[in-house]
């Protein structure tokens, strides 16, 4: 299927008032993800309808939209859990290397450098916090079953290193006191952070977070925002699905808004909140669908936006 880049028109690039983010798609721009024209259907239901998404390297990009807009479907297409009927995804772990992702299996995509968390937490419930993170770290280790059964020294060394790194990551997300606890017994917010630690264990270049703040309290949200900024500061690009507009405003450099499987807006958080199409999508004009969070946040957008754009 040869298509022109029709999808780009949908993205509606804007010039940011502060001048920092330039229009996506400019030649020579360093993109970590360039998803083009993704279309995903389940029978008669179109979940994604020609969605395009570009993310600059090192950027924190948020994907927002009402429930059922296709945010998680987009994540599933990027990580190989779903295979879109058409469209392509280009992922560039390092400047200069690019991989096409559609058609690859999820574990291969993780190996290339995309890790994710899940909206409904999916830890390995009976494994300890440490073991959960170890699974992520050890996918990059090479020693095989034979050297394991013989207990060869290089395997033991790799295992020790893995434990060390896992402990480091657990400390980074603030779970060092939970190392040996069964992950299912952790409180909700800690499970979310453990999932992030497990994803970081795979040494990603791009981290996909699916509603990391859902069900967490305000204090945990602040910690989460700090954690996301720390991750980005370590050179990992972050793609974030989030309903909590305060969190989005405080961390994201730009925002993509999805509704009914289409991109309806793209820009800085402040711009997006002023966008009439976005306000309509959230508040609704006829069907009355609304998300209190987004509506409230849209109302006090300028105040929050100012802080973020500095």
């Amino acid at each position, binding site marked *: 299927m040869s298509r022109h880049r029709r999808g780009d028109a949908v993205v509606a690039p804007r010039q940011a008032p502060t001048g920092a983010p330039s229009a996506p798609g400019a030649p020579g721009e360093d993109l970590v993800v360039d998803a083009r024209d993704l279309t*995903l259907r*389940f029978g008669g239901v179109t979940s994604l309808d020609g969605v395009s998404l570009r993310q600059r390297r090192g950027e924190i990009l948020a994907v927002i939209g009402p429930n059922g807009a296709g945010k998680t479907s987009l994540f*599933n297409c990027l*990580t190989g*859990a*779903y*295979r*879109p009927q058409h469209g392509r995804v280009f992922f560039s772990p390092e400047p200069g290397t690019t991989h096409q992702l559609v058609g690859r*299996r*999820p*574990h*291969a995509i*993780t*190996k290339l450098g995309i*890790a*994710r968390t*899940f909206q409904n937490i*999916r*830890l*390995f*419930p*009976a*494994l300890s916090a*440490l*073991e959960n993170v*170890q*699974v*992520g770290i*050890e*996918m*990059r*280790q090479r*020693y095989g*079953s034979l050297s*394991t*059964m*013989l*207990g060869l020294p290089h*395997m*033991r060394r*790799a*295992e*020790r290193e*893995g*434990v*060390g790194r896992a*402990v480091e990551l657990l400390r980074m997300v603030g779970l*060092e*006191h939970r*190392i*040996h606890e*069964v992950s*299912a017994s952790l409180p909700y917010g800690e499970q979310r952070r453990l999932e992030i630690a*497990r*994803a970081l*264990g*795979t040494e990603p270049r791009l981290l996909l977070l699916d509603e990391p703040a859902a069900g967490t309290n305000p204090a945990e949200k602040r910690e989460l925002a700090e954690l996301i900024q720390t991750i980005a500061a370590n050179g990992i690009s972050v793609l974030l699905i989030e309903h909590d507009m305060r969190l989005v405003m405080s961390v994201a450099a730009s925002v993509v808004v999805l509704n009914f499987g289409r991109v309806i807006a793209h820009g800085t958080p402040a711009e997006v909140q002023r966008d009439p199409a976005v306000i309509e999508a959230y508040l609704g004009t006829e069907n009355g669908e609304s998300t209190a969070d987004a509506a409230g946040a849209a109302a006090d957008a300028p105040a929050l936006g100012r802080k973020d754009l500095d």
Partner: protein
Amino acid sequence: MTATTTATTPPAPPAGQPGPARGARATLAAALLSLNGLRRLGTYLLLGLVAAVATGPDGTADEPLGAVRDSILDPRIVVFLLLAVALWLVVAAAPLARPLVTTLIARVREPVVASGLPQHRYAPIVTNLVLLAIAILAPLFLSGAARQALVNDIGIYALLALGLNVVIGYAGLLDLGYIAFFAIGAYATAYFTTDKALPVHSPFLLNPFLVMPIALILAAIAGVILGGPTLRLRGDYLAIVTLGFGEIIHLIANNADNLTNGPRGAFGVPHLSINMLGLEYDWGNDPMPYYYVLLVIVVAVMIAFGRLERSRIGRSWAAIREDEIAAEATGVPTLKMKLLAFAIGASVSGFAGVLFASKQFFNPQSFSLQASFLVVTLVIFGGMGSRLGVVVGVAVLQGLAYYLRDPVPPTDRYIYFGAVVILMMIFRPQGLIPSRRRKREIQLSEQGVGGADSLGGARPEGAQA
């Protein structure tokens, strides 16, 4: 966990024991009368009933259920039920004796405990050494026939069950055709070691020890060939495909007269022997040398699989069992890891086939569907994912079958094995000696957490679109 995790805190010591005397009586009452205690009583009574029927009079063709009626009406049943109640009381009282035992151990081992190492680390080592000593010394007190059973029914099946434990217990895949790899190992031995056993034979003849790696590799290849296309299937479908594979191999063995000698089987496979570097030994007809070879191999396999279980590979399997989609997303190549489990399980089975073939005459009956089910039964009974449990389970169940061979005709044996499996799955799905990880998974899935089900059923959502 290795002792090198300096940054990790050691797990908390077990909770304080309840106070003496009055506390003990309350604990006992709770253990007896709680839901769990009553449930246990029910299990034991049902087990007693099964045992009573199993050892009772046989039915006749006219009246097949006469056996059940006669054995229940027989006063003997009272004995079985009393035994069940006694067992219930003993099990309930056992935790009360524990503080006593631990203080005793602590007294003996005071200096070690003082050095700061948690003492429970030593308990498994001591237990294992005691069990090993029992395994080494036990056959000396047994009759000739019992020694034969010890090799044929316990030793070989312990090896088979350890191999299947990798597939069922670690990777969570249900393989009902497991015995096919055993057959491949056995026929490969007959093919490579002698020109008399089968109508066809290898152009060069080998010592059975040299056939071991060949059989190992052949069985692993067969496992990969079977697993490659079928491991994409989920739980139940995989079971059906492997069942079919087992039947195919069995039928080929039975019907390919000019290849496998058909139902007459293979006679005259040489015994294990060593003849090199001035060392000469023939294992011969005596079961004892075979028993000790098997013992060494079983212990070696247990150690090797223990390492596997605690390594990245074992953790990947656990991850796949608990949440396959999350495992994929975390970078675990699920298909490859399942295939690895399949190949490792198959190669152990093929290896066991070599020992079996060199030990005794065999024919296709040894590789029937029933034998596959028997190994699955043994794994479930002993405790999926628990190496020690599986081996002890084999010893207990196969030992019972041996000692009850007179009251229970072998043809009826599988009826009672079936009853035991049903009871186990209802009342103690984690098996005789459960693995800690597996037990946790079963508890969690009872609370609705996680997708772990005992036989590898993954959640249906989120497949490739």
